[in-house]
């Protein structure tokens, strides 16, 4: 009888303990949820752009000071008002439209490069990617890269390319859209000029301006050309991390090309009007300088 009582007491104690344990868990959960909400608010506060609020604040206080300066006939207030209004308007005017972090850029592009690398590796296509000039294509704004199955550099006939097939039989290979096509179209849009109507000299003189000033892709860009070889040196590029990731993938860096090298290849093939391959890509030990050499065929 006593044993039964003890067992009941033990069971009651255990259930009480269990209930208390559950209560503690719920309390802890509520505390953690509160902390999470507070952190989320803090993160939101840190992430939002304060320049807009500051701009409007300066503008309102500036206009107020100007109005007061007229009422009190105070030139000091007028100077303060002019200054605040001007800097308020300026802050609102020069506010960035939308900037994204470079890590986001890399993360969104790597997966598609991995997929292309896997396709080319699985098909066991050994040839270097050949960037085809616009005369092979229906539209000047499009572009194609032909990856031959053999390591010999063969160019497919114009008819096959213009049909838009992905898998070609004679010569055997893969016809893909370059990863830097839209980037190259953006360079044209920024310059207000179709590269088809230009030459290598035009690119040498104007592409650095787009890279450094307009799009701020890199800190510096140099284009040097030799005998059928064009070498492009890019310093301090926002794509340097992506380029480093692309180097780890088989058959991408020196064949298909990362978006940046690919965009330059597309621009070159449009300007020169000849098929182009990426001969080699090198990154300096400091990781800031990317040098890519292209060869015309």
């Amino acid at each position, binding site marked *: 009888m006593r044993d039964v009582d003890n067992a009941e007491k033990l069971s009651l104690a255990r259930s009480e303990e269990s209930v208390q344990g559950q209560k503690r868990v719920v309390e802890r959960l509520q505390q953690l949820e509160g902390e999470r909400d507070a952190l989320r608010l803090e993160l939101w506060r840190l992430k939002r752009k304060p320049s807009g609020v500051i701009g409007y604040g300066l503008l309102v206080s500036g206009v107020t000071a100007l109005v007061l300066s*007229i*009422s009190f006939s105070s*030139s000091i*207030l007028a100077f303060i008002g002019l200054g605040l209004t001007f800097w308020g308007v300026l802050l609102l005017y*020069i*506010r960035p439209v939308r900037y994204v972090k470079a890590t986001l850029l890399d993360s969104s592009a790597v997966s598609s490069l991995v997929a292309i690398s896997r396709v080319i590796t699985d098909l066991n296509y050994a040839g270097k990617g050949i960037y085809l000039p616009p005369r092979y294509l229906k539209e000047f704004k499009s572009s194609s890269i032909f990856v031959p199955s053999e390591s010999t550099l063969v160019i497919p006939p114009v008819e096959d390319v213009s049909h838009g097939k992905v898998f070609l039989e004679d010569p055997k290979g893969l016809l893909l859209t370059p990863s830097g096509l839209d980037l190259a179209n953006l360079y044209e849009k920024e310059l207000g000029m179709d590269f088809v109507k230009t030459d290598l000299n035009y690119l040498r003189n104007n592409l650095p301006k787009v890279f450094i000033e307009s799009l701020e892709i890199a800190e510096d860009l140099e284009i040097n050309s030799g005998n059928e070889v064009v070498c492009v040196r890019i310093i301090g590029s926002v794509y340097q991390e992506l380029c480093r990731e692309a180097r780890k993938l088989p058959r991408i860096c020196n064949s298909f090309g990362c978006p940046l090298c690919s965009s330059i290849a597309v621009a070159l093939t449009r300007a020169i009007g000849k098929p182009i391959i990426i001969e080699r890509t090198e990154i300096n030990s400091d990781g800031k300088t990317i040098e890519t050499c292209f060869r015309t065929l």
Partner: protein
Amino acid sequence: MTFPLTFWDISLWLGITAIILLATAELISPYSGKTNIIIEKRKMRRAALLAGIMSMMTVIARIYGIIITS
């Protein structure tokens, strides 16, 4: 109830502002390697040039006034 600043006060203010803006625009130019400053640098340069031109116009007006009166 009149605006307390004269044309020459505004000319002086414009001149100082233009110098500050032009120097800033030059310092934050991508050619100086400062590509990590998140503002519209092209618009900043445009505003600096506008302030500079306005300042120069007030100076020209002043010179013209001196020539006419002398």
